[in-house]
């Protein structure tokens, strides 16, 4: 048993920390929060250069072929600097779904582009009902012409305004069981009838959109995976992808704890640093416990994903 990071992973952490401290400063983050894009082309190209956009994709699709434990290391560092932009939506939501459900040709086309920083992607799943289950999908895709015609409204879609391709979850046939009859489609950003509205959100480093699909016609090869068989790959992707924001939050929480501790050491009240008072000390200790617990669960979930142990979705 070894529940620690390898020397290579520690090296990835050191590289990521140095890169992000230089490239993703607080000033940079605030500027990105203030604009719709949330990322610059230059910064995105640098992420691609580091090999991080294809970190978890196989080498045949332009990736590095690393695992979720490696990704966890990287995401912790990204969380530390509150890195803005469509990394999660592109690499994990859109990209992973294509990796999980796509044909060899679809994977070759999109994952290679994503890894090289040439394309962004996202997943259009949830709807105004705000349900995270199969029954929440009411968007339809009916067979028409040589392909399908999609109608529906998707809400809370991350970075749809930046995506070159959207993976849309739609119902292709009615069934008694809600998780049957769902399919996944690749919809290009310039598809006719696709409307994307950026929403004002609380966390300005994460852009969310409303996506309306009105009689959007796609060809038969836009189908991602088996017709009516979309729920299984989708739920696998969601379980896997969930590990990433957890790692990001661990990194962010650790940074906040570091900053708080530093402040409690410097700030003086009644003649002593406030961190010498138990009222502050105990709250700091409680924060440490929470951060460490979060890491334990996240690291285990990442490992469980890499090793494909049966309880991996539960761990996530």
């Amino acid at each position, binding site marked *: *048993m*070894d*529940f*620690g*990071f*390898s020397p290579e992973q520690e090296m990835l952490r050191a590289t990521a920390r140095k890169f992000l401290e230089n490239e993703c400063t607080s000033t940079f983050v605030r500027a990105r929060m203030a604009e719709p894009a949330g990322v610059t082309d230059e910064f995105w190209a640098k992420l691609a250069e580091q090999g991080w956009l294809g970190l978890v994709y196989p080498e045949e699709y332009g990736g590095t072929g690393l695992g979720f*434990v490696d990704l966890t290391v990287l995401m912790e560092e990204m969380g530390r600097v509150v890195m803005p932009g469509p990394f999660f939506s592109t690499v994990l939501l859109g990209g992973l779904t294509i990796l999980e459900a796509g044909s060899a040709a679809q994977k070759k086309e999109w994952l290679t582009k994503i890894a090289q920083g040439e394309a962004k992607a996202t997943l259009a799943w949830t709807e105004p009902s705000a349900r995270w289950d199969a029954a929440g999908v009411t968007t339809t895709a009916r067979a028409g012409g040589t392909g399908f015609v999609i109608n529906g409204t998707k809400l809370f879609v991350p970075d749809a305004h930046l995506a070159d391709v959207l993976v849309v979850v739609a119902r292709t046939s009615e069934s008694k069981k809600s998780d049957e009859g769902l399919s996944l489609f690749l919809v290009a950003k310039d598809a006719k009838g696709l409307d994307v509205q950026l929403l004002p959100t609380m966390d300005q480093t994460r852009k969310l959109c409303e996506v309306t699909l009105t009689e959007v016609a796609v060809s038969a090869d836009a189908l991602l995976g088996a017709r009516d068989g979309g729920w299984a790959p989708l739920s696998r992707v969601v379980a896997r992808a969930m590990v990433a924001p957890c790692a990001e939050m661990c990194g962010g929480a650790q940074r906040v*704890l570091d900053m708080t*501790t530093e402040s*409690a*050491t410097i700030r003086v009240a009644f003649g*002593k*640093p406030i*961190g*010498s*008072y*138990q009222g*502050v*000390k*105990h709250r*700091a*200790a*409680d924060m*440490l*416990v929470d951060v*460490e*617990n979060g*890491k*334990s*669960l996240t*690291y*285990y979930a*990442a*490992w469980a994903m*890499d*090793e494909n142990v049966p309880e991996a979705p539960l*761990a996530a």
Partner: protein
Amino acid sequence: MDFTLTPEQEAFRESVRAWLTANMPKEWDRRVTATSDVPRPEAYDVLRQWQRTMYDAGFVGLTWPKEAGGQGLTFIEEMILHQEMALAKAPPILNILGVGMAGPTIVAYGTDEQKRRYPPKILSCEEIWCQGYSEPNAGSDLAALQTRAVKDGAHWVVNGQKVWTSLAHIADYMMLLARTDPDAPRHKGITYFLLDMKTPGVTVKPLRQLTGDAEFNEVFFDNVRIHESQVLGGVNNGWAVGMTTLMYERLALGFGLQVRLRIAVDGLIELARRMEKEGRQLTKDPVMRQKIAQLWIDTECLKYTGARAITKLLKGELPGPEASTGKMVWVETHQKIQELAMEIEGPYSQLMRGADRAVENGAWQYTFLRSRANSIEGGTTEIQKNIIAERVLGLPKG
């Protein structure tokens, strides 16, 4: 990162499991001990024999060096053993303070004679040990201890009092901290003695607890004469020696605790299945389900945090933040489990062992009451938080 065990470790697990199945004492009531590992007075004889049986099979002192009668194995085997003992609801090790604390400290600091004399009998349970640290005016602030030892020829003469001394009523020896230089700074004038409890002048008075049991005691010293050969680790060096003991305490008591929590959560679910509220099975109550699920998550957390700490130990590193959080997180989770058991039982939570209608013969009532002490014994939660804030986060001392 790797969560798998080696084939040898898996084989060790199998051998422990098979041995436990074959050797479990028949007179041991698993149901009563399902949620707790506190030795009850009526079980002492069984427990003495049980430790001896485990010792003869080579399952006591796994991480101790072979010269001291141990097996020279790693913390992984120790962890596996405690996990399997918990899963089998096996009786606990009676001489836990000897095996977990006194023994390793003697191995670390003892003279050749001391190392030859004491460790084997600790492992075999021939000699039970207790810990003479806390006093009426020295608990969290242990360095304030006032029990005095004054040199008289080749002997030290001890006067004073210890309190909350677990197992003192059956102990053969005590790890005794006493002040030998009252003029030195308080951490520098303390000496660690190995005290024979049968020495004239030692009086043990049991203290009855909330649970009705008397696990611990007051111990009085009236001109108790200890030969100078019974000093461990040098005169006035007792603080360092005593702290080593406490470090082992964390390790010794930590293994297996997580599994016991999981067993308690499983027991809680069984309990909730059987109990009804307003005509509805409690496991169907969404609030109850969420509370139980959260406790399950908390026990998972403890498992992985423990694995991170053990990884550091195996790599020869000092335990980091993850190790220092273990005790307080365990306590919080355990107390919440016990509190929820009372909530699940509703009005029945009032009935203690002895009442015909008591649920599970009052086992949960006992463990609930016993769990109240968890946040005090072995380092209070408040002191743990101070330690984390000062030693891990580096906040200034108050």
